[in-house]
């Protein structure tokens, strides 16, 4: 057996913590959960080693790098998995862990730092051969340059804050006359929100689709892609449904972008699992948006399709296991030619939110919880009967993933499984997912990021 870590610290909670522990169990590694007080008695920690980090609020628990690394040290863990969200893309956290002798399961801090900055990341990816959204070459010098660039790329354009996020510090200019005002507003908002008034400009692409590529790299320059995912069904930039392969993507465009993404990943010295996000415009071209330097929530969609050809035949691929192996210094045990992507997979994120009341989050106690099994159905969850959803964190309860030979088969299997989901005590987004999966526009692939196909439901009569 390969030389690995004996004890691995899980610097996260809930569903991803349970997910990481599953891979640890398979590899014979002891996972240790860092938990807040709000999570210490959660069902997913049962029978596990835990270190209590701090109170429920995340700034004194899951967002405190010192508490996390100290907890990893005192529980004698030699590796740390950051999961997603919280500090997963924080280069200072990665550095702190490595400084104290704890291997951070993610890319090197300098790569994370580069990809965390908007225009340097764009430039690096452009140089590595990826198609970008047309716009300014880096930071704008002022409204005059913004006007000149906008005239060149064509209206409407988007003025974006270099330090922005969550939709803040962005303004649309629909014509030349609007550029100066949009520039001033975006700058003021960015300065107030992020203490940084630097802006860049991109052509505004409306009605596109969100496509992303799963990548995996070892420390020795070996990089493979594991296909793409389509995450177009979103609400306020929160993904609701993800699937693979991306329906309607031109095979040539897919092949060219996958190859370019692999060489870009190698060019920046990336290590571990990562995802490049693209916008698919109406001309069918994929344009690079950003790279997520971590495991993604929707990685299961890829796992449900990916198989690796070995001497024992086709075996499933576990992305967390690969992250751990690569983090321990192993080479990828397979090449691109050994990766086989089969069938169609669709994932629904079941959140504790009421889709009929404006997606209001609903913390509270789940009296009874059941998700039916079925052919091609996978359920990733940390929830069990009696689980109390804490008010401090995100509302993800479970991911239900269906596999099928075709997109329709996967969609129908997923809808049937979600119809049988029982969550007594709290509303969930499952009814919305069923409506989307059975919606004619969704099935016909006639939608984009602007609206959710099949939701809200059309008024009867």
């Amino acid at each position: 057996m390969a030389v690995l870590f004996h004890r691995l610290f899980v610097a996260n909670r809930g569903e991803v913590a349970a997910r990481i522990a599953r891979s640890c169990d398979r590899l014979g590694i002891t996972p240790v959960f860092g938990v807040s007080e709000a999570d210490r008695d959660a069902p997913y920690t049962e029978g596990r080693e835990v270190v209590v980090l701090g109170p429920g609020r995340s700034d004194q628990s899951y967002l405190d790098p010192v508490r996390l690394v100290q907890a990893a040290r005192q529980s004698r863990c030699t590796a740390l998995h950051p999961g997603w969200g919280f500090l997963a893309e924080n280069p200072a956290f990665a550095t702190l862990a490595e400084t104290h002798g704890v291997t951070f399961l993610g890319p090197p801090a300098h790569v994370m730092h580069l990809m965390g900055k908007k225009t340097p990341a764009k430039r690096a990816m452009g140089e590595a051969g990826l198609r970008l959204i047309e716009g300014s070459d880096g930071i704008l010098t002022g409204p005059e340059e913004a006007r000149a660039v906008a005239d060149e790329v064509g209206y409407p354009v988007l003025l974006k804050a270099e330090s922005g996020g969550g939709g803040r510090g962005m303004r649309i200019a629909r014509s030349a006359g609007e550029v100066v005002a949009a520039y001033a507003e975006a700058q003021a908002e960015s300065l107030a929100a992020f203490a940084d008034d630097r802006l860049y400009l991109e052509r505004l692409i409306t009605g596109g689709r969100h496509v992303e590529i799963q990548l995996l790299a070892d420390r020795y320059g070996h990089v493979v892609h594991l296909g793409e995912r389509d995450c177009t069904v979103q609400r306020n930039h929160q993904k609701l449904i993800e699937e693979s392969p991306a329906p309607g993507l031109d095979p040539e465009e897919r092949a060219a972008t996958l190859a370019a993404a692999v060489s870009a990943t190698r060019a920046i010295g990336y290590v571990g699992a990562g995802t490049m996000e693209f916008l698919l415009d109406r001309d069918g071209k994929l344009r690079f948006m950003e790279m997520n330097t971590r495991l993604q929530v929707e990685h299961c969609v890829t796992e449900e399709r990916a198989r690796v050809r070995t001497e024992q035949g086709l075996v499933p691929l576990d992305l967390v296991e690969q992250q751990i192996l690569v983090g321990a210094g192993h080479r990828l045990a397979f090449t691109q030619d050994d990766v086989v992507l089969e069938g169609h997979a669709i994932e629904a994120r079941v959140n504790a939110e009421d889709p009929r009341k404006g997606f209001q989050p609903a913390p509270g106690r789940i009296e009874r919880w059941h998700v039916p099994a079925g052919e091609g159905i996978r359920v990733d969850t940390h929830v069990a009967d009696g689980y109390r959803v804490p008010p401090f964190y995100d509302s993800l309860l479970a991911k239900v993933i269906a596999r099928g030979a075709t997109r329709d088969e996967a969609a129908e299997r997923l809808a049937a499984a979600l119809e049988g989901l029982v969550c007594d005590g709290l509303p969930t987004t499952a009814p919305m997912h069923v409506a989307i999966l059975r919606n004619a526009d969704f099935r016909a692939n006639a939608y984009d990021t602007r609206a959710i196909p099949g939701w809200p439901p059309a008024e009867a009569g």
Partner: protein
Amino acid sequence: MSAPDPLVARRVGRGDGTVALLAPTGGLWREGPPLGALVTPGAALGRLEVLGELRPLVAPPGAAGLVVARDESGLARAPVDYESVLVVLDPDAAGSVAADVVAGTEAMAAEGLVFRAPLAGRFYARPSPDEPPFIEAGQEITAGATVCLLEVMKTFHRVSYGGAGLPERGRVARVIAQDGDDLDEGAPILALES
């Protein structure tokens, strides 16, 4: 170099009248007060090592009593979680005085660094008549080390070194109190080299 800010333990009353002092954050805990030690507000509770930095840990306001239970790992550096119980104090075991004693250890400029009696009682420098004293002149002393026994109303209290204004580690210049002396609260016990 300035000393790191002290961490203040958290205090939680327990149903049986005792008080638990809890770790304010995770870390490696060392030099905690032994069983029987008297803890007063602001008194040293040892140090907490967080990513290599040694942070002094002190008792919070309202925490007074004798240590009747403590972390039982027996390790010199015990890993503790957030809100792990470090020590359990019994306020009654220290007699009625303990509740309102102020840590009598304020160092006075005129006399240099002085460790004072936290409460009134008869001073015993050694654990029993035929054993060596706890502390002798010239010896190095660290927070949490036993200084003496004080007999208060027929009960013996173990007094440990530490408190506001005193260094975590120091050298004893002189043992001021004599074996068998009746000390008032705040009477000097040790003079330290400054």
